[in-house]
């Protein structure tokens, strides 16, 4: 319950600060080069209270609309409401993000366990070098390299194994989600390695061995289950990282996700789209962090609060 309240306050803060920021950006949505007929202008002014003071009237209108789930109409795209943009393009970003998270989570746990089990031996050294690369090189570099690689691969084989960019089939998804999840996976691998090393030396692992359990059972039931807990806690922030990383990846791979619209909206000063997507993403992240917390309490009996 307390968490829920915190979440609501966070969302309110995001909405308010976006509002304030938008009003401090130089320019005026109705006073630029584009000709807006006086009638449209009057309608818009009336609808958003633009002819009245910013505070409290405009602010309250804005908040009221958000509470109703209405983010308004796009300023640059003809006849499109922000809600439509969200509805059409968010699922694309979500699928990409979920795949990236799944990939990062499984990869991180797998490689992290490997490095811990083969500590200071070849697999550990190789993977840890790759992890440093994965953490320090930004995602768009990998994206470009991946595209180059695909082009080369397709050329060598003479047929299109994987598409370079675009959207539509499962094959379009693979490379972008891999690229998107890579940085997070590297980070999770490092985390998993240290937590697995802790667990490997734990007393209860000795107990499990003393019971004569087969090594695979010890690994899955005792080591993996406990070592994965720290990974789960950072999954919330990891989702945030992947979401923001998605903006760039969507642009590079020409994926019609929400991130691309957000970037375009900022470039074109499309006020309602910027505010709408920001508040929507903010809410989404708050909800995801909450979900991760709940999931953690479900897995670790020691964290069964409230």
């Amino acid at each position, binding site marked *: 319950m307390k968490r829920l309240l915190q979440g609501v306050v966070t969302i309110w803060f995001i909405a308010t600060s976006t509002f304030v920021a938008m009003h401090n950006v130089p320019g005026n949505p109705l006073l630029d080069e584009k000709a807006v007929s006086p009638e449209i202008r009057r309608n818009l002014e009336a609808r958003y209270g633009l002819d009245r003071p910013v505070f409290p009237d405009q602010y309250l209108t804005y908040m009221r609309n958000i509470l109703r789930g209405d983010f308004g109409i796009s300023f640059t795209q003809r006849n499109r409401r922000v809600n439509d943009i969200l509805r059409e393009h968010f699922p694309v970003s979500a699928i990409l993000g979920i795949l990236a998270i799944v990939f990062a989570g499984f990869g991180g746990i797998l490689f992290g366990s490997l490095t811990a089990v083969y500590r200071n031996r070849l697999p550990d050294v190789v993977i840890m070098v790759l992890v440093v690369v994965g953490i320090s090189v930004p995602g768009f570099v990998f994206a470009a390299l991946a595209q180059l690689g695909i082009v080369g691969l397709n050329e060598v084989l003479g047929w299109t194994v994987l598409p370079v960019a675009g959207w539509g089939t499962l094959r379009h998804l693979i490379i972008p989600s891999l690229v998107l999840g890579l940085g997070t996976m590297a980070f999770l691998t490092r985390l998993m390695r240290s937590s697995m090393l802790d667990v490997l030396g734990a007393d209860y692992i*000795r107990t499990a061995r003393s019971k*004569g359990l087969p090594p695979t059972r010890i690994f899955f*039931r*005792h080591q993996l289950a406990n070592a994965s807990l720290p990974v789960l806690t950072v999954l919330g922030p990891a989702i945030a990282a992947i979401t923001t990383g998605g903006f760039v990846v969507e642009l590079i791979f020409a994926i019609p996700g929400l991130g691309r619209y957000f970037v375009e909206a900022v470039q074109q000063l499309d006020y309602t789209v910027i505010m709408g997507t920001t508040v929507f993403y903010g809410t989404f992240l708050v909800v995801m962090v909450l979900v991760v917390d709940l999931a953690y309490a479900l897995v670790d009996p020691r964290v069964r609060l409230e």
Partner: protein
Amino acid sequence: MNALLSIENLSVEFDTHGGVVHAVRDVSLAAYPGETVAVVGESGCGKTVTFQSVMGLIPMPPGRITAGEVTWRGDRMHLGRSAGRDLRGTEIGMIFQDPMSSLNPTMRIGDQIAEPLQVHRGKSRRQALSQAVSLLDQARIHAPERCAKQYPFELSGGMLQRAMIAMAIACEPAMLIADEPTTALDVTIQSDILDLLADLQQRKGMTIVLVTHDLGVVARVADRVAVMYAGQIVESGTVDDVFYRPAHPYTVGLKAALPARSIDPGRDLEPIAGTPPDLFAPPAGCGYFMRCPRAMRVCEGHPPDLVSLEAGHVSRCWLHHDYAADVSLDQA
């Protein structure tokens, strides 16, 4: 009677950054069916390593068994990384010093006790769980059904040690190795746990190997005692031999350092001065030489052998050599 577990000339070393630690040096020990053998000694004397290496529970590397032979019911055991694998859980159960950290924090107690039954006895999860409840009951836990559904963090140390015992005896092992089972518990609980172990031993005819540093515990439950010092057994025999007729100066020193309901209330406890030798470079002679009030010139450079004093009572000291002057140790 044939020994259940027999350890002959076992040596264990560890590679560390500081060099090679000679943790166990030439230890021989046997445990017979139905008896309680106590292995006593101070921290770092190698008592725990002895049994964990035989059971394959020390990490290898850095640990390594360099010499020795171990037999179980007369059959020679493999002493490598997988030492004791076929015996663990079925023939030999183990409990450890710190019950708080010895149980998996994210698994229910019942599931943890049921695990060996599922693995070794092929029981279904349901059967194994109901047997886990009866095992908890045997370990004298009140409300065993509730306990089985709880997680380790919800129980006290004493309860957890009972749960550990229930887990260790799940498959009715012939031997229970209890490694400092009461050290982390408070005194009243210690006594309960020892009673429980004694009771289980009687009912199931288990052999118990008790590894401890607590002479009081030894006197209470053991049939035979082995005293370890600096990686070696310095004296072993029946409880009466070792407590009433101690032969090795170290054992004598330990007894003098023990608080007792003394006849003489003014008696001070006599600590043993000094510290144990560095096991990176074990001394050439007797390990106890530096601290021994009875040390002789021969002790410095020549390691003493185990000398048999009476049937089953041995001591590793030059004082028992035929050439040594006849002295009474009690005045030491």
